């Protein structure tokens, strides 16, 4: 289905934990022009937070790298959010998306990141290449 794009934003910033709240705020500010419901905005902020945190913690092992976030707004009120990194990549995406699965060893990661994204968005797709990076694409259609 061909959607009509009404606006697009690209955000490029370091994948550091301090930028997790920045990403939430910037994406929320950009989506505001569609006048989303409070719940919808909260859902999106949470999903963005999960995807960004994954890049910070897992893609780059908290050692830094860059985040590339693209938000596209469509005329039918669909929002597409892509969170891309150039980190280590995911060897088994299906396994990664299993609830409670985490590659974290010494922290307290709950392994619920993808579950949260899937709960709060209409569709989540993950493309990854080991040694090259990962792109998580989330789609959510806002109510009229």
């Amino acid at each position, binding site marked *: 289905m061909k959607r009509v794009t009404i606006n697009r934003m690209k955000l490029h910033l370091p994948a550091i*934990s301090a930028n997790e709240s920045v990403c*939430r705020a910037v994406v929320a500010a950009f989506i505001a022009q569609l006048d989303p419901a409070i719940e919808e905005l909260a859902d999106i902020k949470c999903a963005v937070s999960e995807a960004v*945190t994954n890049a*910070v913690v897992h893609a780059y092992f908290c050692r830094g790298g860059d985040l590339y976030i693209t938000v596209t707004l469509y005329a039918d009120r669909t929002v597409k959010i892509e969170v891309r990194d150039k980190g280590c990549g995911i060897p088994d995406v299906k396994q990664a998306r299993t609830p409670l699965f985490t590659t974290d060893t010494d922290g307290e*990661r709950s392994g*619920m990141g993808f579950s949260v994204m899937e709960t709060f968005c209409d569709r989540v797709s993950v493309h990854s290449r080991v040694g090259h990076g990962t792109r998580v694409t989330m789609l959510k259609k806002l109510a009229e």
Partner: protein
Amino acid sequence: MAKENVYVRAEVMQDVLRAELLGEIDHHTCRPMREELDELLYLHRPRTLIIDLGSVSFMDSSGLGLLMGRIALAESLGTRVTVRSPSLRVRRILELSGITRLTSLVLEGGSGTQKKERKEHV
């Protein structure tokens, strides 16, 4: 006795440690919150730890890890844990994780339906 830093407002009265988490709970703020909570737990070894989420404006799954880790630590020290006053949004995340089904955890107050409560006088 009251202690306050920018992430956690804590109060110890008799055998109860009440820790109010402030603001946003994400991967970034989890670390200072965790450090503060652990330090308080080891220092005071209370009978009960109340984690008050009433002032939490945002929480993602990092907050789940934070809570589950503190619950595990508290239990290893013989401390019972109560999570209090989650907003509807926060409660939704809690329910996603199944943390609300832990029989060892008391979940009190907050907005929305009360799923499970035990009468607990603290």
